[in-house]
């Protein structure tokens, strides 16, 4: 069931995120709206069990691209006014991934992965993220 998103449909891509400047998600947008959770579910299995890090549906990748900034600070993506959070609040779907996953990009090591995803999606790497948590 593929349909094109009509213009009046409510959008969640947040101002100031990298996604806001691009035309398409890693898949056609209306497909993402319907299927994103399937994609990342498969991704997580192959990552955790098989060690595959380089595919485009990486959760860290989603966060990278969809994160928005306020005064240079990335805003947790599951917050009710942010990309994932807003839509999930609207649809009343529990989003507990970020109980464990970082809700702001902070993984230096994962930049490479993000790059791979971006390459696959045909986008340039625009955001530089700092690695937190070191040096305690």
């Amino acid at each position, binding site marked *: *069931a593929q349909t094109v998103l009509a213009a*009046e449909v409510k959008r969640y891509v947040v101002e100031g995120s990298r996604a806001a400047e691009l035309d398409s998600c890693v898949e056609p947008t209306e497909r993402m*709206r*319907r299927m994103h959770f*399937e994609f990342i579910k498969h991704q997580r299995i192959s990552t955790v069990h098989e060690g595959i890090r380089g595919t485009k549906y990486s959760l860290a990748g989603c966060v990278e691209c969809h994160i928005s900034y306020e005064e240079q600070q990335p805003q947790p993506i599951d917050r009710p006014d942010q990309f994932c959070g807003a*839509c999930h*609040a*609207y*649809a009343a779907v*529990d989003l507990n991934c970020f109980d464990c996953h970082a809700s702001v990009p902070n993984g230096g090591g994962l930049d490479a992965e993000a790059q791979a995803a971006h390459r696959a999606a045909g986008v340039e790497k625009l955001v530089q993220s700092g690695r937190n948590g070191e040096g305690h």
Partner: protein
Amino acid sequence: MAFLTNFYAFLFYFAAFVLVAGLVFKLVQYSATPAPLKIPTTPAPTTRTGVVLRMMREVVLFESLFRGNKWTWIFGWMFHFGLFLVTLRHLRYFMDPVPFPIQLVQPFGIYGGLAMVVGLAGLWVRRFSVDRVKYITSTSDHLILALLILIGCSGLLMKFVFHTDVVEIKSFFLGLYTFDLKPLPGDPLLLLHLFLVASLMIIFPYSKLLHAPGLFFSPTRNQVDNPREQRHIAPWAKKLEQQ
């Protein structure tokens, strides 16, 4: 697309009107009809609170049905409880913001949906396999079961196989409140689901689905057993007295 959206918008306005007007009419009719005699099925509670409790047991647990037929009870209760959960889950399409309790029970709606379909299937099988029930079953009974099963199955397929855009659906329905037509996703399953739901709404006030409000008006269940203590007399019967 625009045609579909307009068609469904109209359909739902119409269905909602029929449902509400029909139900209001029936409720008014029921409450306007007097119950001239005390006919609770005894042993019955002797106080109002007792009656409320009895009614709750009937509505929530289907107590009488439990005593009557265990198999029907199991399937019937599964279906209704499932339906109830599904309804709660569906509320998220119609409210914004979604109240916290609904958010909480929302995921259970999926199990509700499964239970509902299994229950309905059980009830339907019984309509063929038990000769007594077969005898009393009319075409409309089959049709209603079919309708509900189809609604359930199309919903479950959307949930598990052919995902649809929930967010768009929600804005469509929220838009209906303010006569602000938002596009509806064109997924065939969704359109089927919605069409059947509209049909259900339309037939509700004209069919045996009236059992839901009916139960609350059933004198054998909602009367207090206190005829010796309190005189109970209907207006039309009072007129006889004045003759």
